[in-house]
């Protein structure tokens, strides 16, 4: 099964991305996924301030500066991995180097026929 590991980071985490100790953790984790041969997709994302939000307004579109103000955690990136079941996905999720202020959500990839 394919699972997305959805990474959410706090504002402090986004600031710490320049910090080698934090960055190296992510590089090592990504390497480990590649090494295991289970990484099928993924991307790290720039901080939420760089985002732009488009919303449908009737026939028109409304363009706004990001990010969504609510929530202490913001989307930081994601991995898509191919593993046999949820327990295997959980095992990889527990290795993600998020800080105590961040989180990892595991979601199965939508199956399309």
């Amino acid at each position: 099964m394919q699972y997305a590991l959805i990474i959410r980071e706090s504002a402090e985490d986004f600031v710490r991305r320049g910090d080698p100790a934090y960055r190296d953790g992510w590089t090592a984790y990504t390497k480990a996924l590649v090494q295991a041969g289970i990484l099928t997709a993924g991307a790290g994302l720039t901080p939420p301030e760089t985002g732009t939000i488009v919303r449908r307004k009737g026939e028109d579109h409304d363009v706004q500066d990001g990010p969504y103000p609510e929530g202490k955690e913001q989307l930081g990136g994601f991995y898509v991995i191919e593993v046999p079941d949820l327990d295997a996905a959980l095992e990889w999720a527990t290795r993600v180097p998020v800080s105590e202020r961040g989180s990892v959500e595991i979601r199965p990839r939508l199956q399309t026929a």
Partner: protein
Amino acid sequence: MTSDAGRAAEKVARQSYGKLIAFLAARSRDVPAAEDALSEALAAALRTWPERGIPDNPEAWLLTAARRNLIQAARHRNVRDNARSMVTLAFEEAEERMNDVENAVFPDERLKLLFACTHPAIDRSMHTPLMLQTVLGVDAKTMARAFVASPDAMSQRLVRAKVKIRDAGIPFAIPEQHMLTERLAGVLSAIYAAYGLGWDGLDGEEDSRTGLTGEAIWLSRTLTTILPEEPEVMGLLSLMLYCEARRHARRDIDGLYVPLEDQDTGLWNEIMMAEADALLRKAGTFDCFGPFQCQAAIQSVHVSRRRTAATDWEALVTLYRALISMKPTLGAKVSHAAVIGRVEGAASALTLLDGLEQRAIASYQPYWAVRAHLLSELGESDAAAEAYRIAIGLSDNPTICTFLTGRLKAVISRSA
């Protein structure tokens, strides 16, 4: 046929049903589809076996009955329905196994099902109902009564949990060694919760053999045969047997509640206590103490009173301390305070109770009952009466209510 034979037939039917569900679900990961295939066969078995007797091969009987439903249902079904064909494939594998003379005994994979139902990704409050439904075929209506929910709400939550098992890819497997202890704790807690519900009489069954307490003991027995080397599994079974042994002593002839200390030890079931003792001793030989062994040990101290005519409160203090260090639940802390009350006096016990988190105790009935008892020992009748009233207000069991009301009256008359 006698009702005992009827119950035996029901037991075999549910046992075989659970084995077949486990077999089908482990291969298709689709619990709802497995249940669809087998539920009518179970209903037919529960109808006919008590009258006509248990068939020689119960699993084969159920599969044959289910085969008819499956063919009928397939005619109405979309051919492209992938999940259904997974179950159909698993079904055919089961039939093949059944006809294979080399493998005469049908595989028992219920433990895998138990681990799936109590997976941490499933809402904790659904672990016990899910387990009871899939492994024992207990229907949603019975469960709704036991778990104080509307039948519709219970059905919906069960369906949601089963869809999650399928769609999230929750494995049907015995967890690897490094996860086993933690996951096993989830299975044991769910079984003990089923026992607790039956014990409180919330399932409306006074007869232990048909109520949830019986199902819980039975599941735990099954577990000891599948995992014979796990001391906590023995601990859980021992704990439940100690409690079960006292079942007939906890009500007097008028049906009124009798507290443990006042129970007639002659009414306790010697056979069950002997089995519980033996299990606890065997668990101890593995030298790996855990919360269920600890709770069983607490019960073993209580039942020793039948031989020594006295309760070893010091031993209970030690055991509750150990329990709190392993599993700091509110129940353990309140019980610890109660036994401290016996050893060091009511004042020390009240200090312990005062130290508990206020928000947690607000709706916890045992806290108020213990507090009321301690206050009345100190002669603080008004405060005791107040605490008894809160305890009565929080009780969901009429016999406990009657008992506490009696205590309340005694406190009021003493202060008057």
